[in-house]
């Protein structure tokens, strides 16, 4: 066996993963089952699926915040045990520290790892500039707009130069214009360090515009991968404009056909439960 780059382990590999949760009442709820998913080194993978299908759960498994009930989760060929090192995570809601200013928030990662304050701060200034927040170093999170707080979170993760970046509907709380802007900048930043990305979203347009591959999941309980669609659209892409390309429209229709069935199932299940 030779170790050529082609045979290097994928960035993320899930095999036969099941995840059960025990409810307070004691019943077992299967959130995920038979999940197989591979994300290549440097690949941008978007995950779409109806609410409650287990998208966030999948990310927590990869990040090492939860363990699978069954199956294996590997990052760079290593079985995940404990918090995955070399991973970044962007949460749907804000997770930056409200009592630290922008500079200290961005410098947090290196500081936790024992980097000297001066080095960490100068590195942080550089990343603050790259995400377009130069001049806001001294602000506290509550003094920033939602979009700016997302930039802080992005810089906070990228300063660690992660090999994999996990994003859980990171821009869903933003207004449409800010969201498109952030998506564009995300692509620019991704190009600089090129981590493998798993980007969870409920917005199919966003998924296609950003990703190399769109993964559609089935409705929960027991969500699993239904289909994968490679996205061959050329890069660099301009998120706001790419949706008018005929190839984009074609992809959108094909993926939506697959997704809609699951959304309908999830919807009728929710209604059945509510009735």
């Amino acid at each position, binding site marked *: 066996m030779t170790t050529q780059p082609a045979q290097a382990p994928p960035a993320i590999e899930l095999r036969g993963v099941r995840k059960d949760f025990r409810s307070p009442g004691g019943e077992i709820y299967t959130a995920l089952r038979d999940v197989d998913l591979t994300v290549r080194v440097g690949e941008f993978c978007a995950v779409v699926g109806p609410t409650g299908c287990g998208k966030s759960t999948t990310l927590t498994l990869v990040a090492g915040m939860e363990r699978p009930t069954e199956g294996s989760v590997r990052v760079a060929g290593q079985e995940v045990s404990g918090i995955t090192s070399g991973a970044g995570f962007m949460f749907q809601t804000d997770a930056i*520290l409200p009592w630290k200013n922008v500079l200290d928030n961005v410098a947090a990662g290196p500081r936790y790892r024992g980097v000297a304050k001066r080095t960490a701060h100068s590195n942080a200034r550089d990343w603050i500039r790259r995400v377009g927040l130069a001049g806001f170093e001294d602000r506290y999170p509550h003094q920033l707009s939602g979009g700016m707080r997302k930039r802080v979170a992005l810089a906070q993760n990228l300063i660690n130069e992660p090999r994999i970046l996990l994003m859980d509907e990171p821009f869903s709380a933003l207004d449409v214009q800010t969201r498109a802007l952030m998506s564009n900048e995300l692509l620019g930043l991704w190009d600089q360090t090129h981590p493998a990305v798993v980007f969870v979203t409920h917005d199919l347009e966003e998924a296609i515009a950003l990703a190399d591959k769109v993964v559609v999941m089935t409705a929960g309980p027991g969500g699993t991968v239904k289909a994968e669609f490679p996205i061959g659209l050329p890069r660099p892409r301009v998120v706001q404009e790419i949706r008018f390309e005929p190839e984009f429209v074609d992809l959108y229709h094909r993926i939506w056909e697959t997704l809609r069935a699951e959304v309908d199932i999830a919807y009728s299940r929710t209604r059945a439960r509510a009735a």
Partner: protein
Amino acid sequence: MTSTTVPATSGEVRRSGAFHLHAVRRRLLVHGVQAAVLVAVLGFWQLYVGADSRKIILYGVPSGIVARLKEWVTVGTAVGSLGDQIKVTIEEAILGFLIGTVLGIVFGLALGRVRFLADVFGPFIKVLNSIPRIVLGSVFVLAFGLGLESKVMLVIVLVFFGVFFNAFQGAREVDRNLIANARILGASRWQVTRQVVLPSAFTWIVASLHVAFGFALIGAIVGEFIGGLQGLGVLIKTAQGTFDANGVWAAMVIMGAVALAAEWLITRLEKRLLRWRPPQLSGPDL
């Protein structure tokens, strides 16, 4: 009494123009009415009680209280100079307050963070909390004597639980995402406790400090009352023993002043520690 104190909202509202003028007028009105209430109560007291010398002995009278304070300041008290009495009591209260607060925070965070510790020590703390701890004052006086130690012990016991329950609650209320985010960014468990849980719980902890310092003063004075040689509690006890109602009231006025000064300091500390919070519009401040 498993009392947790809910964090207060700091009320800082920026005003301008006509709104500002309105606010000034309103504040004047409030202070004016407050002064009127005070004058009415003290005036009634002075006129009703002051007319009857038997009632003066039983209830005390404002003019007599002022005279007693003057005497204490100029001549000194039955147990020594007034300054010394205040100093002794404050010393006991502050020492016990600091130790009790630190212990409360450490135990609160530890039990809030480590489930095993909470399971083991939870029942003990509940039992200890349910007994009327002020009675321990007698035990401490017997065990540690009439000096500083017995009062400090009582203060610690009184302060500890309030701070503990708030720190415990604060540690459990920390946003899970903040912790997960810090862990993924590379923080160790200890770093998470120090840099995420502690600052986050501070809102809760600081809220408990107001009540805790009140308990500290009570502990110091009751301790002196039960068995002490010096301090405001001794002053009250002596006054009571000599049928000096004015003396009891005078000591209470001093305690009130000390408590207000402490309250002011704690509020400043609160503002400083919680600087990062957005200014909030709040309801009536009490």
